[in-house]
């Protein structure tokens, strides 16, 4: 299968501080890939760069055969690249339905199609349906995360980048969200998952990269990494 994303020797800096010190990785079409690592390892920076929110100082990102830098920021989502940002980033002063509509902002198909997709999201997360006309900012963290993921799905992504979907959520909600993530992958969406919860990420994905200090230190099959001694010591606390 072809690579939907190829990253070569990517370097990203915040002013004088180099956060990503040359990483190389790839994601194949239809894969679920995890990016794990401690705080400050550069995981979120990597995702933000992939989503066009940060400009790399060096290296190359190729998305679906095109250099990412050739696509305008606001066109990325039209090209099928969506990010569920860290901290959810829902529009608090818009209603739940309006948030979902914004997810479909770049779509040019009919209103009926979009409405059908909104209904589909409500089916996946009935909690959102109950709150359809409520301001999104008044919802709980778990509900906001459900909304953030649904909103990203509304754009019909080909590659979905997820930044810490489990952060600060009750185990039962995390379970529901990861169940949905697996469903989404089954539908053919390629996933790049950034997680603090390394165990959960490795159990969910097929392959994984381990980041530390702005570099990729380990990579391989997720199940193998799950039983790798170094990974267990550093990230699984066993």
């Amino acid at each position, binding site marked *: 299968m072809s690579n939907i994303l190829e990253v070569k020797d990517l370097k990203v800096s915040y002013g004088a501080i180099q956060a990503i010190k040359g990483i190389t990785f790839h994601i194949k079409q239809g894969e679920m890939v995890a990016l794990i690592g401690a705080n400050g390892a550069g995981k979120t920076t990597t995702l933000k760069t992939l989503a066009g929110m940060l400009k790399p100082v060096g290296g190359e990102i190729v998305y679906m055969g095109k250099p990412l830098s050739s696509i305008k920021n606001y066109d990325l*989502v039209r090209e099928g690249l969506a990010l569920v940002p860290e901290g959810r980033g829902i529009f608090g002063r818009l209603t739940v339905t309006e948030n979902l509509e*914004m*997810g479909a*902002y770049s779509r040019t198909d009919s209103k009926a199609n979009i409405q059908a997709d909104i209904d589909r999201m409500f089916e996946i997360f009935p909690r959102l349906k109950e709150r359809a006309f409520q301001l999104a900012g008044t919802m709980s963290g778990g509900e906001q995360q459900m909304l953030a993921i649904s909103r990203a799905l509304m754009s019909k992504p080909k590659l979905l980048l997820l930044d810490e979907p489990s952060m600060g959520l009750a185990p039962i909600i995390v379970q529901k969200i990861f169940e949905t993530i697996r469903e989404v992958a089954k539908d053919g969406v390629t996933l790049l998952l950034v997680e603090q919860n390394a165990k959960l990420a490795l159990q969910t994905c097929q392959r994984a990269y381990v980041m530390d200090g702005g570099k990729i230190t380990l990579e391989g099959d997720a199940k193998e990494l799950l039983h790798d001694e170094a990974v267990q010591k550093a990230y699984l606390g066993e």
Partner: protein
Amino acid sequence: MEIFLQQILNGLVLGSVYALVALGYTMVYGIIGLINFAHGEVVMVGAMITISMLTMFSAMGIQLPGVVVLLMAMMISVPACMILAYFMEKVAYRPLRKAQKLAPLITAIGISIILQNLAMMIWGRGFKSFPSVIDVEPIDFMGATVTNLQIAIMIVAVLMMLGLWFLVERTKLGKAMRATAVNQEVAGLMGISINHIISMTFVIGAGLGAIAGVMRAANYGQADAYMGAILGLKAFSAAVLGGIGNIFGAMAGGILLGVIESLAAGYIGDLTGGFLGSHYQDIFAFIVLILVLVFRPSGLLGERVAERA
């Protein structure tokens, strides 16, 4: 009692104009956190171009009903102001979007001075009288007098505000504007072009402002290059009164400020035993502004101003 009713009516007319201008301030602030001090000048340019157009039409000997002539003039002046605001944002504010907040504030003042002086070069320093294309007829309303023009001003203002409400609450563009106001970064992730949204905000605000400028000039029968400065400051006060960044706050604040100012002007002579006359009415907008800033900095309908400013 007649004076009271009369002043309320005058206040509503005045307030309609303030509200429309205040919307321009509040919309821009809501999205990029900038007080666009040049907005008042856009309002003035709208009035001046309309006057020029009306004068030109009458010189051309166009014989049409006054309302039609006025609409024709506004079809030129209002888009002209929208274009002006579009380029103003592009030239003076966009390059400074990532600069610290003070920098665009200074260019805003700079643009304001440039526009004021350009207007003086084009239209002169004195008053330009508003051609009397519309026959103003006084109408008696329970002892108070209101003109057909003033009624039209209030109706148009209400229609514009309803239109804006619909745009912001119901359309895709409006929702994208609100989303951008909440979080620009994430709005960008949705595929919303932030530059486009910000341009549209300036353009819509300028359109409303230009219409307000025409209303003001038509109601007073004159306009000059300075009218935008004082009108802008008062509309800004109205926006702060309502809660800057909040569209409904600007509407409410504008109407309220107009009524307060009008009532104060009507009674100030009696209250101070003739010491202060009604020409002191201008101070009330600023007294209100100070009181709001002291006692309720977030304004009537505002929220989280402290966090944003």
